[in-house]
């Protein structure tokens, strides 16, 4: 954990800042705030004391303070990454701390301008990225992306990444964070169960509906979902249906809060398809009252056939999944009618977001640490430990380390090529994200029709658009 020695000696400026915070000098706080945003932030205009092996000009003796979210992926890979950094800079003292409640524990550090050098901002209590960006608390990662990759001096780091990896962390065209894990979203099923029953994964939605009926005839629920904690997992299939039919523009308009975006024809068709599942009784009874862990457990225990989720699912369930389950990815099938994108188009985004705070004491060290993580060595180590793909192209050389889930995810990523898409409004507009969760839960539970759902979302989006106190983003 953070020991006292890492909370720096109160410099005169920091004491004044703290005094300002205690409200002793109200105007002082305003003045000091001005100081806060310009001090310590590495602007791209600074010249780097770069050298061949050290393109980011890292101070070889400066200590490195890394804080990670110690959750589903554990911290073994971090220890490996820190050791790589230490090998390159043996004189630098490194510290690695794994915590769970990022918000509560990091907030005071951000306010005191003493954040760590690298922060893995993930988990249920992650700090909303938009807030940190709006407060100027994050360093622009452009220098990192422009630097040469550790593996090949002639390519930049940016070129070593999978397409669409950095979409969700663009704010006004700047990359403000590094999401490390490349996540594919879709449906998941037990290949062995399907083999036993002679089922194959469909490429058309109508075939999926027929499959659902067959699954039901076997006494299983076709789908399960966690209504109380993660109904929004189903936003992914919903948007996938719409985008595959209507093209990327369907969700770009939604992200941009365009009027009527939620009521476009692809969205209507998609919502109707999902609503039909609810009215057909295709969801495990009681799903609206289950947490996602309960729903997932029901699924791996054979009470439900298919689960909508991202590719973290195998890792999350590994303690309970029975042997021979053969968890496999299934792409979201195509709606009837003409479709702009092939069925292999993939809803994909990167998560497990690493940040370098603008106030970090060893900012360049932080960037260098990220560069290390993006080497093939570190990326392969991560994937072998967690069975999750990183955003580094070709890392792990397509190995699946014995995991059917990873193998099918890799196959899906390869098949998708450049046809990846994702939505960003949930990161930009938290209130709209929350409304989305409430309303999709209503849709899945059969409490709303497709029309009600879409209208509710449209009016919520319109309110956000009209609210001038909310900062707007554009893609």
């Amino acid at each position, binding site marked *: *954990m*953070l*020991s*006292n020695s890492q*909370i720096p000696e109160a410099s005169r400026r920091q004491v004044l800042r*703290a005094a300002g*915070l*205690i409200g002793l000098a109200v105007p002082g706080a305003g003045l000091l705030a001005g100081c806060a945003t310009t001090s310590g932030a590495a602007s791209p205009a600074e010249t780097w004391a770069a050298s061949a092996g050290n393109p980011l000009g890292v101070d070889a003796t400066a200590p490195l303070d890394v804080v990670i979210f*110690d*959750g*589903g992926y554990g911290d073994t890979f971090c220890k490996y990454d820190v050791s790589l950094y230490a090998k390159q800079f043996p004189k630098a003292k490194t510290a690695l*701390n794994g*915590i*769970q*409640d990022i918000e*509560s*524990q990091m*907030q*005071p550090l951000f*306010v*005191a301008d003493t954040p760590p050098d690298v922060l893995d901002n993930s*988990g*249920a209590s992650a700090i909303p990225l938009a807030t940190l960006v709006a407060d100027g608390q994050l360093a622009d990662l452009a220098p990192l992306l422009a630097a040469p990759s550790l593996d090949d001096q002639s390519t930049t780091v940016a070129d070593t990444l999978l397409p669409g990896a950095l979409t969700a962390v663009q704010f006004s065209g700047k990359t403000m964070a590094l999401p490390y894990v490349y996540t594919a979203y879709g449906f998941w099923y037990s290949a062995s169960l399907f083999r036993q029953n002679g089922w194959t994964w469909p490429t058309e939605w109508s075939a999926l509906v027929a499959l659902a009926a067959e699954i039901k005839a076997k006494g299983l629920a076709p789908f399960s979902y966690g209504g109380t904690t993660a109904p929004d997992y189903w936003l992914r299939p919903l948007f996938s249906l719409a985008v595959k039919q209507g093209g990327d523009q369907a969700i770009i308009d939604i992200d941009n809060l365009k009027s009527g975006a939620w009521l476009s024809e692809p969205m209507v068709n998609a919502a109707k398809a999902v609503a039909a599942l609810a009215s057909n009784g295709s969801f495990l009874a009681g799903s609206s009252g289950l947490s996602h*862990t309960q729903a*997932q*457990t029901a699924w791996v*225990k054979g009470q439900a056939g298919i689960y909508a989720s991202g590719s973290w699912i195998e890792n*999350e*369930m*590994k*303690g*309970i999944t*029975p042997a021979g389950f053969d968890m496999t990815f299934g792409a979201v099938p195509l709606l009837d009618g003409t479709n702009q994108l092939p069925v292999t188009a993939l809803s994909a985004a990167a998560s497990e977001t690493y940040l370098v705070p603008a106030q970090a004491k060893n900012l360049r060290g932080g960037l260098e640490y990220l560069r290390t993580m993006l080497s093939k060595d570190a990326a392969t180590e991560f994937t072998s430990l967690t069975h999750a793909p990183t955003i580094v192209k070709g890392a792990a050389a397509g190995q699946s380390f014995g995991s059917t889930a990873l193998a099918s995810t890799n196959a899906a990523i390869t098949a998708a090529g450049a046809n990846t898409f994702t939505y960003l409004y949930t990161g930009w507009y938290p209130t709209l994200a929350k409304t989305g969760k409430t309303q999709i839960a209503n849709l899945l539970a059969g409490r709303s029709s497709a029309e009600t759902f879409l209208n509710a979302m449209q009016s919520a989006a319109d309110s956000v658009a009209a609210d001038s106190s909310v900062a707007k983003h554009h893609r």
Partner: protein
Amino acid sequence: MIEKIRSALARVAAHGVLAVWALAATIPMLWALISAFKSNSDLFAAPWKLPSSWHFDNFVRAWSKADIGGYLMNTLIVVLSALALTMLLGAMAAYVLARFPFPGNRVIYYGFVAGMAFPLFLALVPLFFVVKNLGLLGTFPGLILVYTAYSLPFTVFFLTGFFRTLPAAVAEAAVLDGCSQEGVFFRVMLPMAKPGLISVGIFNFLSMWNQYLLPLVLNPDQHSYVLSQGLAALAVQQGYQSDWSALFAGMVIAALPVVAVYLALQKKVQTGLSVGLLK
């Protein structure tokens, strides 16, 4: 005769009602206890049956993943010290507020009550800086003082009500006998307030034992973690790794000392109550 039958029926009814609630209260916890011995598969596949095999390794996992022994020690140090300090300061303040009308009495009283009302996590960030500037961040004395300060509102609130119900006659007699006001408090009133003190003491012990937000922000060093922090970390980790049986095992381990203390104190409650009866 009819009296006897009615009496007996009434007793049976009483037992019935009490038994239903006793079952409702204990069955969930018994279930958690038994589940702590199950494998994860069993837990979900057969939640209401006895374990197919008794997995003591759940406890080992919980103990080693979370350094429960060390956290237990830390918690005991912090909680027992804070409890003693709270009871002393709280009783002193409550006594004065309850029995001495003076200008500002109501203001101070409501000042304490208001402290109970405000949601803790809003005060956390300013509190962090206050504690840091006092040089008490990450120290046990700092944590103890903060626990005490945040337990004062409820203690003062509760004990004030209690002190008000105690008879004035005994106190007046003691003063006439030459006892100082402070002496009256320590030698006469405090002993009379024992039942109330025990009740609020148990409550404070529990809420301090389970206190999470304060140490989260003020006690960042993992080696100094208290049990609630360790347990929460375990819960989050197990949640992500679906290792629920280790979580239940951890919970059982963490609850054992509390249950033991409560069962031991229960006798004190009985004695305390009977002292009250001899008035």
